[in-house]
């Protein structure tokens, strides 16, 4: 069974009230959603909180998900809106994020520096550009899928990715041929 048809089957069961099916959807899509939110928000603790809120909202709205729609794009869309709402409200808990940051696995020194440079460059990007980059360059979303998830025109997604990519490459000091 293909991943898409398995998703469709699980969505149909969850729409019928099966928490077991929904639990499998959580298992299958938590990595994509959390990865996207980590890159879109910049801190892991907030991203995981938002991912949990996203799944909770998804449970309430699962009846509205049309047959054949991409589940991961739908989830990332809900997560992105939650991220924008959270970013607008001031005073998020920074101490917890700091603690979470300390638990992150350390890479080699050079790699660690690259990663810090990437994070700093991502933080500089406008929210929409950052979300497009997080989906298409980091998570292998197609441009069309990202456009669906972020509710943006395809052309806008493409231009955000192109500009965002150029700025990230510049920040990493990569000569892009």
């Amino acid at each position, binding site marked *: 069974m293909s991943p898409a048809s398995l998703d469709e089957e699980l969505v149909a069961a969850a729409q019928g009230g099966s928490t077991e099916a929904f639990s499998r959807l959580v298992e299958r899509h938590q990595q994509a959603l959390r990865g996207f939110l980590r890159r879109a928000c910049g801190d892991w603790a907030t991203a995981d909180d938002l991912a949990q809120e996203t799944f909770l909202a998804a449970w309430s709205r699962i009846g509205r998900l049309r047959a054949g729609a991409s589940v991961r794009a739908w989830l990332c869309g809900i997560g992105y809106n939650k991220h924008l709402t959270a970013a607008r409200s001031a005073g998020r808990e920074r101490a917890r994020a700091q603690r979470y940051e300390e638990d992150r696995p350390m890479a080699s020194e050079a790699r660690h520096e690259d990663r810090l440079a990437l994070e700093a460059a991502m933080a500089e990007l406008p929210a929409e550009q950052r979300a497009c980059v997080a989906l298409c360059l*980091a998570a292998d979303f197609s441009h069309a899928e990202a456009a669906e998830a972020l509710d943006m025109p395809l052309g806008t997604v493409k231009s955000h990715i192109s500009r965002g990519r150029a700025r990230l490459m510049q920040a990493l000091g990569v000569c892009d041929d």
Partner: protein
Amino acid sequence: MTEADNRLKSLFALDEPPPRDAVFSTAVMEKVMRRRFQEDVALLSVASVAGGGALWAVWPTLQPALVAVSQGLAPALGALALAACAAVILGGRARTALGLEA
């Protein structure tokens, strides 16, 4: 995909969550079950209040009718209640005795 893209992707991959995370999934499902329980309780509360209100509204009409009917039907209702209790208590054993269940 260029080498620059590969480098970018490998850096992004450092932030990738694990493909399976039981702690995260359990936390989500706990919240989902709590939400479901709250919704069930809210629904039952509303239904109880609505039922109580409806009964209160029709009680003046219903009461005389119930009194009149109950005198005639009391023996039959009593027998039915007794039969229902017996069926619930002996249900499994009776079916076994009749060979309907292993």
